[in-house]
């Protein structure tokens, strides 16, 4: 077994071990923990980057390492690193639990990494639970007066019910195909064209990922958890965890390819409702994170739109957009957590005067928001357009129309954020000073958002290769 194949996972296991040890200490050393975490996650990004072009099978073919999985692993590693960069001020988490915070972040990352490489249903299930449970724990870790545990409990139970459905679906797939390996299932699924068991099982099995991606009707946790969780935790949920869910949707949707119309019509319904519901409800939100939660619901619809095409173009679009979403959503969350330095929930109106308090952050905010809204020249625009293109190519004319109309609706609430940041000013609010690394991070994010939005070719080629690996 080539160690490089399992490199990232091993590295993060080691990292989890380090933090496990750190949790055992008596005295609290917040800075040290943070520095270790940051350093390790940076190395982790490197390691994952080095393993980007690995290929092979592990663990009796239950685990496949290919470009697809490695890209997403890289995204996860990057997501972890980015979340840790904004964890320099973990005001929302009690100091004595900060080591645990890093530990759980690491384990959830491991879970997701395993998830994106798994090609066996049970592995997928357990990896999903691993990543979810860590997050269930992270949400109520927040210092707070009850909304944290409330969010945690809602997250947990909705997750539990979803995974119950998923497990039920998995059992049907297992029953119908007699295997838990995707490679074995795929040809069998093709024989099940005339029987509903295949697609129902698959749809139920996808419930777990719908839950993770907050697709309607599995979205109910999102607003509450976004609002109730610590900013950094929510950032991770909103970025890395979405990428992992998208990856698995891509992997599993292939199974539905043969069952054709009924499968996609279900996804079309979910996609349309997710987009529309998310966007409409986001309009009336006042809490920034809650609004972003609804925006993530809407984005889930966009992802689904690409997934349901089950074409190469669609997969390219979705992979591209998943990476883009990670970066742009992170950008917005970064601004959020920098503005709410004391770890509180941020009302949209509290962004007032940001252009004066920190021009750099306000620039990042604009870029992030525009990217989320799909305004060029940003990765968000390019990604969305790629997805729309593929959907149109696959013949979903009305879906694209609805998606485009939703693109307008979403602009309304995104612009409200800009309105607050750019137009309202409260002279009493102090200037926000950013450390040099944070400033660099801002510039880097801006460069990525604009740069890859304008020149998406490389990423698209990469995504193409990755999409070939799953299809």
């Amino acid at each position, binding site marked *: 077994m080539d160690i490089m194949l399992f490199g990232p996972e091993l590295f993060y*296991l080691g990292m*989890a071990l380090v933090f*496990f040890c750190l*949790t055992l200490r008596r005295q609290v050393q917040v800075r040290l923990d943070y520095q270790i975490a940051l350093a390790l996650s940076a190395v982790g990004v490197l390691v994952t980057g080095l393993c980007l072009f690995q290929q092979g099978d*592990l*663990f*009796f073919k*239950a*685990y496949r390492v290919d470009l697809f999985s490695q890209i997403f692993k890289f995204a996860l590693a990057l997501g972890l690193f980015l979340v840790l960069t904004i964890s320099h001020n973990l005001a929302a988490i*009690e100091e004595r*639990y900060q080591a*645990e915070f890093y*530990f*759980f972040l690491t*384990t959830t990352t*491991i*879970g997701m990494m*395993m998830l994106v490489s798994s090609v066996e249903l*049970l*592995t997928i299930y*357990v*990896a999903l*639970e*691993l990543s979810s*449970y*860590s997050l*269930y*724990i992270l949400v*109520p*870790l927040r210092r707070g007066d009850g909304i944290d545990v409330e969010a*945690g409990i809602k997250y947990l139970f909705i997750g539990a019910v979803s995974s119950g459905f998923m497990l*039920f679906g998995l059992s*049907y797939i297992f*029953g*119908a195909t*007699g295997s838990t390996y995707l490679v074995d299932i795929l040809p069998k699924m093709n024989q099940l064209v005339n*029987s*509903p*068991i295949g697609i*129902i099982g698959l749809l139920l099995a996808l419930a777990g990922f719908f839950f993770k991606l907050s697709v309607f009707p599995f979205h109910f946790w999102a607003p509450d958890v976004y609002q109730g969780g610590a900013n950094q935790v929510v950032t991770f949920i909103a970025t890395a965890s979405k990428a992992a869910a998208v990856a698995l949707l891509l992997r599993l949707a292939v199974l539905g390819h043969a069952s054709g119309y009924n499968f996609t019509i279900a996804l079309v319904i979910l996609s349309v409702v997710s987009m529309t519901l998310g966007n409409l409800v986001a309009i009336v939100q006042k809490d920034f994170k809650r609004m972003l939660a609804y925006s993530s619901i809407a984005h889930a619809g966009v992802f689904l739109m690409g997934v349901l095409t089950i074409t190469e173009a669609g997969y390219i679009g979705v992979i591209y957009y998943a990476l883009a979403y990670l970066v742009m959503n992170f950008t917005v969350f970064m601004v959020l957590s920098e503005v709410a330095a004391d770890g509180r929930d941020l009302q949209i109106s509290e962004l007032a005067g940001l252009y004066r308090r920190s021009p750099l952050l306000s620039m990042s905010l604009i870029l992030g928001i525009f990217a989320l809204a799909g305004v060029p020249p940003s990765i968000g625009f390019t990604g969305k357009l790629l997805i729309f293109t593929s959907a149109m190519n696959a013949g979903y004319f009305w879906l694209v129309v609805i998606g485009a109309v939703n693109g307008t609706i979403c602009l309304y609430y995104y612009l409200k954020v800009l309105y607050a940041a750019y137009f309202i000013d409260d002279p009493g609010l102090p200037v926000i000073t950013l450390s040099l690394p944070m400033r660099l991070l801002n510039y880097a994010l801006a460069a990525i958002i604009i740069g890859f939005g304008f020149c998406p070719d490389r990423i698209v080629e990469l995504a193409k290769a990755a999409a070939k690996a799953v299809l």
Partner: protein
Amino acid sequence: MNAVSAWLTPQTAATAAFVMVIGLTILGALIAVGARNIFHNVLGLCVSLFGVSGIFLFLNSPFVALMEILIYVGAICIAICFAIMLSEPLYLPPPPRNKAKVLGAAIGSAGIFVFLGLLLKKTQWTAAPERSTDWSVTTIGHYLLTDYALIFELVSLLLLVAMIGAIVIARGGRGNP
């Protein structure tokens, strides 16, 4: 006698036992969700789990049946009992039922039942063409360490996480009254 013995074939006995087991399972489940006393719920769950393990016996898996009782009844139910004692005082009278909610829940679960029932009704199951007959525990162990080794590791990690998490979360309040 002959009639009785004709009637009391092993199959009949097995069927009777099977019906009992099913009854146990469903009854237990009903108690688990229906009783208003939380301890009755736990007991119901235990009953139901015993039933399930009986079903596992019928499904040729004594090992799994045993594990079911060990893990569920032995671990989970006990943990639940602890949690009950750690949380709500039992002497509080239960609040009245919310009719709408019950009705909604009934409709929801009935909906799912209908949906999946329809599915089951319509599905033609086909067995695998070649079926191994190896039911030994050794094989299970073999699988655990070969094909499912990764999951085995994952589950251990999962349990670790759960443990630490439980400690962190449950401990949280005490230092912070």
